[in-house]
């Protein structure tokens, strides 16, 4: 006899009509103690719900402090004339998301029954809100008697609940087999929101002849057109990708997408948002020849080194390293030193990774690409920005939060991996250095390191050298996060069975090759959920930069808006802005934690 393990949902027979009563008895009133608990918990929920609604819809709540300052919260003082740049950046992300959704087949399907259940749930919650809410007074937070809150909540709740109930009942027997794509539901919601933005007017505070009044306007009218355009483009891209996905080679498409994602971040920040004011004369007379010389001469040199047998190649690499180190003693542009150093590293790695035939070309291509990228990045970093803002840094608000989080994650990743390898290495001094670093950094709170970066580090710089506050915060967060990341990666490295090392040895791989091709990929794969957890923690930790007075999202929500007197007085509106900040942070971290859960299931970590 074989026992088949089936999904619980598959196994369960179609429930009988009295389902609701049975469900209630089993889940809420199974015993006297359970009944008492249920009643108490229900009271707790109702009181909490009433408290929340009272808090949100209180007469003196100033939600216009949030809506009016939305731009400040998102990008701080980014100039209005250059706002197209922000929308282009959002569009790039939306396009990449749409394409990735299509090619990675993201988004499951749900049944009308489940959808109906959710709708009924939301409807019941809204009806309850009508019953417990503080509707003794007006509905609008702005003091306008537009619609009675009680009736509004009741109607919306009833419509949703009835709609959901019908959705559960009407399709009858066919409902079992029918499914709806979740992305379709998302599309309906997006279209709904856009229609709402185009058609419905809500009261907005404005200032006419110095008097603060309230007029009826469309919601966020300045953003309606861009959002609509972006939504149309994204949907079109999704549709095209969906059509193409069977016809293009999947591997190529996916690696291209990953490459685009990686490239999009620096492109958006450095090129689109910062808009460097390039000096083309200097670019053609200095940077272009520099890059060409390094690519061509270095390419021939690397080709030679990779092709030679014996010691000559390594000796040449060592000589290059000495030259690169010596370049720090001679005054010259930093980019040259950097490229010399890179050339030395490539030369030392060439005998191992140079390869033959196509492999050699890939190696040389990597060299050329890296040189070109570095020269380009340094060129645009040294060029002044055309963006004129009143603050020190051209980005602020949520954009700065995202910038800090993403760059700290990206930069701390290689450092963390190196630290983890050093800590698990057999070389005692490396191990000692890595252990000291990791334990010291982890033993002290992040805020201390931020203060070290902001107060102590500038003191240790030679006069004349200045590093901007954002860069220092980035550095502190990177070094901090690297220590935690290293511990995660170390966990993965230690989980690799000894047989893998032995097999690699038996194949004649060197230690470097074993690490790069055998152990590290497995270790990283095993700790992906932990790494996503680290990303979430880092994202939340970016809020700490408000303590050293960088104008990140939280700083604007807590320090800027509650002190605002122009053009409107929003003094002391801290509770509103903080609650809004909490919701935004929550949406991002919650999404990430769901992704982490999915990944964990998909990779089957801990199940094998």
């Amino acid at each position: 006899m074989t026992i088949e393990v089936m999904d619980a949902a598959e196994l369960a027979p179609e429930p009988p009509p009295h389902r609701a009563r049975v469900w209630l008895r089993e889940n809420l009133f199974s015993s006297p103690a359970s009944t008492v608990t249920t009643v108490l918990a229900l009271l707790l929920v109702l009181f909490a719900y009433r408290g929340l609604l009272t808090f949100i819809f209180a007469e003196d709540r100033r939600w216009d402090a949030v809506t009016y300052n939305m731009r400040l919260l998102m990008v701080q003082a980014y100039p209005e004339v250059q706002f197209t740049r922000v929308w282009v950046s959002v569009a790039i992300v939306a396009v990449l998301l749409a394409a990735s959704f299509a090619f990675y087949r993201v988004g499951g399907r749900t049944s009308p029954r489940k959808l109906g259940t959710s709708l009924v749930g939301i409807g019941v919650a809204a009806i309850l809100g009508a019953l417990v809410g503080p509707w003794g007074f007006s509905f609008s937070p702005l003091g306008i008697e537009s619609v009675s809150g009680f009736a509004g909540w009741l109607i919306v709740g009833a419509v949703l609940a009835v709609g959901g109930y019908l959705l559960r009942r009407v399709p009858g027997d066919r409902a079992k087999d029918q499914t709806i794509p979740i992305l379709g539901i998302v599309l309906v919601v997006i279209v709904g929101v856009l229609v709402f933005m185009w058609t419905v007017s809500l009261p907005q505070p404005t200032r006419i002849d110095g008097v603060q009044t309230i007029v009826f306007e469309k919601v966020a009218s300045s953003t309606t057109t861009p959002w609509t355009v972006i939504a149309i483009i994204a949907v079109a891209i999704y549709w095209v990708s969906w059509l193409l996905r069977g016809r293009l080679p999947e591997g190529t498409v996916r690696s291209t997408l990953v490459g685009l994602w990686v490239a999009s971040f620096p492109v958006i920040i450095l090129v689109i948002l910062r808009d460097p004011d390039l000096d083309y004369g200097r670019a053609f007379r200095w940077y272009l020849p520099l890059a060409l010389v390094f690519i061509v001469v270095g390419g021939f040199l690397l080709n030679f080194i990779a092709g030679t047998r014996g010691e000559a190649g390594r000796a040449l690499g060592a000589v290059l390293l000495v030259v690169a180190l010596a370049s720090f003693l001679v005054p010259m542009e930093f980019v040259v030193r950097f490229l010399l150093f890179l050339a030395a590293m490539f030369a030392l790695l060439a005998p191992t990774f140079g390869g033959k035939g196509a492999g050699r070309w890939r190696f040389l291509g990597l060299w050329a690409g890296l040189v070109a990228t570095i020269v380009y990045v340094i060129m645009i970093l040294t060029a002044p920005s055309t963006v004129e803002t009143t603050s020190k840094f051209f980005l602020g608000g949520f954009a700065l939060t995202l910038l800090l989080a993403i760059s700290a994650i990206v930069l701390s990743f290689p450092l963390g991996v190196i630290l983890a390898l050093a800590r698990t290495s057999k070389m005692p001094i490396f191990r000692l250095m890595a252990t000291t670093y990791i334990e010291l950094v982890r033993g002290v709170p992040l805020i201390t390191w931020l203060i070290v970066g902001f107060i102590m580090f500038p003191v240790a710089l030679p006069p004349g050298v200045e590093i901007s506050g954002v860069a220092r915060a980035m550095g502190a967060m990177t070094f901090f996060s690297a220590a935690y990341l290293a511990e995660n990666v170390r966990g993965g490295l230690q989980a690799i069975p000894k047989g893998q090392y032995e097999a690699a040895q038996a194949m004649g791989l060197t230690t470097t090759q074993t690490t790069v091709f055998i152990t590290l990929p497995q270790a990283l794969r095993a700790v992906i959920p932990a790494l996503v957890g680290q990303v979430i923690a880092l994202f939340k930790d970016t809020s700490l930069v408000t303590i050293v007075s960088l104008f990140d999202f939280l700083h604007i929500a807590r320090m800027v808006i509650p002190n605002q007197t122009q053009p409107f007085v929003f003094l002391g509106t801290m509770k509103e802005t903080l609650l809004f900040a909490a919701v935004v942070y929550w949406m991002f971290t919650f999404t990430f934690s769901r992704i982490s859960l999915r990944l964990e299931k998909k990779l089957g970590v801990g199940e094998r």
Partner: protein
Amino acid sequence: MAVTVRQQEKAPLWRNATFLKWLAQVVALAAATGLFVLLGSQAFENFANSGVSFGFDWLTDPTGVDIREGIDTKPDSGVRALAVGAMNTLRVTISGILAASILGTLIGIGRLSHNWIVNKISTAYIETIRNIPLLVQIFFWSALAIALPALAPEDVGEYWFKASAKGFSFAWVFWNGGFWPWLTFVIAGIIAGRYVSKMRHRHQEETGQPSYPGTFWLLTVLLFAVVGWFAWPLLAFMSPVWHWIADLLAGLPPFLVPLLLAAASVIVAGMWIRNFFESRRTPAGFGKLTDDDWFRVIFAALAGILVAIVIFVLGGITITTVAGVRVSMPELALIGLSNVFDWLGDGFANNGGNPLVFQKPIVEIRGAGFVQYGTTGMVMTVPFFAVWMGVTLYTAAFIAEIVRGGILAVSKGQTEAAQAVGLTRSQYLRLIILPQAFRIILPPIGNQYLNLFKNTSLGIGVAFADIVAVGFTIMNQTGQSLPVVLVWMGFFVTGSLLISAIVNYYNRKMRLVER
């Protein structure tokens, strides 16, 4: 068949893997040290240029730091101010750990509840709290508490509990004269209780009769506590003894302190090396020691000597006290230690009263019409409340997930076996499941305690006077950034080590004893 064994050629130095590895490591170490030396010397130069001389004099210099709450609100010296900050950090850490453990456990069990609504509440709590940055939560609690009504003249009176924009005040139990001798009785009771409970355990095992070891333990402790409540003046004779020890310490020659500490460091290193050799010993003599092993031995010896040297160097530092006298660090350490014993001596003196007193808070008008909380009762200021609430709720969400995971990780067979031998639900939960879950839960919970300890430093955002905020103020006033950061590191690393030591101790105690 002839096998020719060719003499292996000795590799040249630049191809010798061992040599290259050591070379790379030494170069890396030298580069890292060089970077630090470079930054450090530049920092010293800049300090010298701006007229700030780097040192520890600020520890005893009078400060203008006003601290809003703590054991002393107008500290007379830097070290005193830092001590107040450290006490505040510890206060919020310990009360936070207690509250978060209880709340976290309840919510963790709630997530496993069969009751749908309890289950959903717990899930909603966890998913909300742990996905919002802690700093936002602390700010939010602070904003909520500050918005409470201020104390008005009509509020004057005595309360059980009073909330206002000045913070929360509630009735609390405080220690009084005779607390320390009474505590001695209670500790003796706990030790005696252990003995009694062991006896009852043995009785139960021998006879099979239920012997209630837990109840007996509790009764013993209670007995000692009640007796001690009345009998504590009997221990008053200890007071002169503590004072005598204090005098003895104050009279010791100061050079003994670094000498003893340095000797201890060298002895510890020596013992570690001896144990290491012992652990490598095989019946055939000492096993083969690898390069790595030798490195460890040499490093341990070096570390022991280095610590000894550092202790002597620190012992040579003298600082000017408030009275204008220059004292050395060892003298300061002796004075501090002797003060502790003097304080203990005062605590044991028979000055009447009960060991514990119960106080209710009052609201009173002080000075020129300022309505304030009186000195009785416990007052929780707004910053303390915000930090405590923040770290408690935040950590509880993480603890709840750990508790849930720990209970789920106990194999289902354990429950089935317990049911099969006829244990009731409460019995098998208490005796079978929870002890096993506890073993799984403990290490990650220790990590959460560490996080809570470090997270209290976010209090600086709402002006909570913890060690980071106080140090930051001193740093801004004196410009002594490096020494303050060193104090922070010392404090947090010590605290972390202490918490991990406690958790590790319990971990070892709870570990399965395997053959």
